[in-house]
């Protein structure tokens, strides 16, 4: 097969896989959150509501597309593209197994960080172009939140790069054959997951899209399929973050018995379920708590994590020491958060 047919086929297969996964995830999230809150969740469309997300997708396609008269036409219409495309680009180098990958980039980890930062531009475009105060407010909040939590996220992944001495995701996974990085860097994993929740705008960090404050934030003026694209992007991003965490922290496909891609999917979906569980459990933070948490707790801890991993790699400490130190730091972090003063009330 010529190379261009090969990559096009792989990208197309990935796109179809993602759309089907998102349809499944929307159903799963509603069902899972429903069960946690002692409801049934969707029940009417198909067996156990299995066709619910398909019905929703068709409904979104059939809705009228509205645009405010004063909206900035280009910013408003291009925003769904600018949000969706960078998030999809992450999947170019997410390996499902050694061979099941679109292209295995040598700078995979760095590439993912680079493109995942781009979708914030789309969100600001959506907020700016909508001619709506809530949209602009939500977009600015979103930008502030995403740039603040990008730092702990990137620095937590830096610990992985130091551990593996490589940015190639396949190499990083293969080094975890015996011991997943989760056990080496529990602190790094905690930082990554917390920052990822904020990057995903998911509860408890859903301030930019909070219904009771900015009525849906940047996406307030979008209707029909344009809004649907943002919704799709949100779930694709969820899959991307969970997939990345399962690759760099949980060891990806490198476990025995099951076929490799199956292990990868099991780990990814387990992480997605955890994120959904968090959403169904925790209330929303205030914005001052949110920013304090990023800059005063997560960022210093991320540097501590780098320092520990660096010493370990440089002086060849035994594995258990670094695990213990990192775990202790994670517990200290948890205790700090638990006793963290929620800021002055004014």
């Amino acid at each position, binding site marked *: 097969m010529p*190379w261009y047919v090969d*990559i*096009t086929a792989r*990208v*197309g297969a990935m*796109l179809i896989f993602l*759309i089907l996964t998102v349809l499944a995830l929307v159903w799963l999230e509603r069902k899972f959150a429903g069960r946690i809150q002692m409801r049934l969740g969707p029940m009417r469309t198909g067996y156990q509501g299995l066709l619910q997300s398909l019905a929703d997708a068709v409904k*979104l*396609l*059939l*809705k*009228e*597309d509205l*645009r*405010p*008269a*004063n909206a900035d036409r280009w910013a408003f219409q291009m925003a*769904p*593209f600018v949000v*969706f*495309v960078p998030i*999809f*680009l992450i999947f*170019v180098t997410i390996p499902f197994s050694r061979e099941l990958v*679109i*292209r*295995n980039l*040598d700078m995979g980890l*760095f590439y993912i960080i680079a493109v995942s930062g781009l979708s914030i531009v789309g969100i600001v475009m959506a907020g700016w172009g909508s*001619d*709506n*105060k*809530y949209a*602009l*407010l939500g977009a*600015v909040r979103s930008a*502030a939140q995403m*740039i*603040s939590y990008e*730092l702990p996220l990137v*620095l937590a992944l*830096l610990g992985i*790069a130091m551990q593996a*001495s*490589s*940015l190639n995701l396949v190499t990083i996974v293969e080094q975890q054959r015996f011991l997943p990085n989760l056990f080496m860097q529990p602190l790094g994993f905690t930082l990554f997951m917390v920052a990822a929740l904020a990057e995903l705008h998911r509860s408890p960090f859903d301030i930019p899209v909070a219904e009771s404050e900015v009525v849906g934030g940047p996406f307030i003026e979008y209707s*029909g*399929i*344009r809004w649907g694209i943002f919704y799709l992007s949100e779930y694709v991003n969820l899959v991307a973050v969970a997939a990345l965490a399962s690759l760099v922290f949980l060891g990806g496909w490198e476990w025995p018995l099951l076929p490799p891609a199956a292990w990868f999917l099991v780990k990814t979906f387990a992480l997605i379920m955890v994120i959904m569980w968090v959403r169904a459990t925790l209330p929303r933070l205030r*914005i*001052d708590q949110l920013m*304090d948490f990023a*800059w005063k707790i997560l*960022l*210093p801890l991320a540097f501590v994590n*780098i320092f520990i991993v*660096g010493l370990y*790699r*440089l002086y060849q400490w035994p594995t258990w020491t670094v695990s213990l130190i990192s775990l202790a730091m994670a517990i200290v972090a948890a205790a700090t958060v638990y006793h963290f003063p929620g*800021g002055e009330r004014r």
Partner: protein
Amino acid sequence: MPGEYAINYTAVLVAAGLGGGLVAFLFIISYLLAPHHYSEEKAISYECGMLPMGRFWSQIHVRYYIFAILFMIFDVETVFLYPWAVTFVSLGPAAFFEMVIFILVLLFGLAYAWKKGALAWR
């Protein structure tokens, strides 16, 4: 056949094209299927059910700007950190501690901003 590098980043371009293509395809389907009943009222921005007061242009607090500056500083730092992270083991302790000093200088900046109250959200 082009080199490995060219193929890798062609794949990125193809993914951008197909991803954008999917969005455009959905828009076109929706354009063909959805109703079009334009009215003046529908094109008014939403504002709690009332007629909107003025345009969307409102004042944004300066604290967002301060956080953006702080972000720039540390984000540029991470760009320096990644090449170092891959090679610091082979470069030895000197490279590691030089980077620790670099990070400490920047952390001093963070501590200064913290002390000056730039990190307080009020």
